[in-house]
């Protein structure tokens, strides 16, 4: 090999590597939604008032329908497959089904008025219950042996509890520095596969990221809100409005935050942050929603028609 070639080869390698790096650094510029599915309408009884949604790796969709006291299963085209549950306090029955998440094999469903998480298989057969000693304000299934729960505490600073399959607290993580006035440290949260925790405070302008060992990595505020008004109801002071309603992650680790009453489009604006906490873009859902869910194929699910309709969208990314 001549001297020139000896120089050219590493030089070209460096140029090519830099080019590849610059491609990877392309940032998300804009994001829009392409509706791919709509389940339920005012003209049918597919859904009455859905609350929670989760999808499995085969694209089956599972929904808690609170006004129908049931858990429902739909296929990838939105065809109704099965329903389970009725009003009641017994196993497999519901008083007010709420949040849902799943492991590889099982579905985990909370109920507003039952101190337990009910476990179903993917055919919606009731399997067992996990007793809980506290009300659930958000839920994430880490495995069949670990369920993460955010809750209401009247006395302790904000924390997330990890329960085992028997309902025993195996870990608890305190994310708030100190006890705040009632409800002010309530959060919606998501946890990625590395155990990294993302919090969106419901009544504060605060979004936070914590490492798996519990160290706070960053804290952001997007809306410039200093204080949320509290009002007295039944002699108890409670926050009047929501700042953020939900948080979800896409497959790239981007963080999606559903805004509340203070957003330009209340309960419809979604803020997209990079894993480092930088605001990348904002988009607006076609209808107000109480939650957003993103499955592992980057489809986003949200509410329409006051809970009668479940919408599924393909996330379309535009990079600069």
């Amino acid at each position, binding site marked *: 090999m001549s001297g020139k070639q000896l120089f050219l080869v590493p030089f070209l390698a460096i140029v090519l590597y830099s080019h590849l790096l610059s491609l990877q650094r392309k940032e998300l510029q804009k994001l829009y939604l392409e509706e791919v599915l709509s389940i339920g309408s005012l003209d049918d009884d597919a859904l009455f008032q859905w609350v929670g949604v989760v999808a499995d790796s085969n694209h089956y969709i599972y929904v808690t329908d609170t006004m129908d006291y049931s858990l429902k299963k739909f296929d990838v085209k939105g065809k109704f497959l099965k329903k389970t549950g009725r009003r009641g306090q017994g196993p497999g029955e519901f008083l007010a089904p709420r949040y849902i998440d799943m492991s590889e094999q099982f579905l985990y469903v909370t109920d507003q008025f039952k101190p337990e998480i009910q476990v179903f298989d993917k055919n919606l057969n009731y399997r067992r219950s996990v007793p809980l000693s506290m009300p659930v304000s958000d839920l994430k299934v880490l495995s069949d042996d670990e369920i993460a729960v955010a809750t209401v505490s009247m006395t302790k600073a904000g924390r997330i509890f990890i329960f085992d399959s028997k309902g025993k607290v195996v870990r608890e993580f305190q994310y708030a520095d100190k006890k705040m006035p009632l409800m002010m440290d309530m959060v919606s949260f998501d946890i990625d596969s590395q155990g990294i925790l993302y919090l969106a405070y419901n009544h504060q302008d605060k979004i936070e990221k914590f490492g798996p060992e519990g160290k706070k990595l960053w804290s952001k505020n997007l809306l410039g809100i200093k204080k949320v008004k509290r009002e007295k109801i039944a002699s108890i002071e409670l926050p009047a409005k*929501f700042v953020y309603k939900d948080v979800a992650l896409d497959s790239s680790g981007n963080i999606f935050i559903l805004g509340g009453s203070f957003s330009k489009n209340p309960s419809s604006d979604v803020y997209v942050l990079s894993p480092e906490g930088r605001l990348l873009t904002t988009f607006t859902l076609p209808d107000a929603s109480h939650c957003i869910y993103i499955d592992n194929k980057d489809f986003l699910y949200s509410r329409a028609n006051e809970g009668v309709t479940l919408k599924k969208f393909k996330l379309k990314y535009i990079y600069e």
Partner: protein
Amino acid sequence: MVLKIQKSIKKVSLILAVLIVFLSLNLSAEDNEEGKCEEAFKSCMINALTYLPNFALFYVYTAYCTNGYIFCKKYLER
């Protein structure tokens, strides 16, 4: 006689205490225009009072009422 009077005083005091708690829940006519979530919360809190003799149960019930109120606001509020 003295015992009878003491029992009456105790009874009246208990009634007054419950009355004060009820009044402090602001269940006046003007509240008819408040939202569904607020109505449901007040109704839940009235039910919670039945657990008052057992403060631990009352505390847990109150937490459920509060959680329910917050969920209601999250779902219905824009």
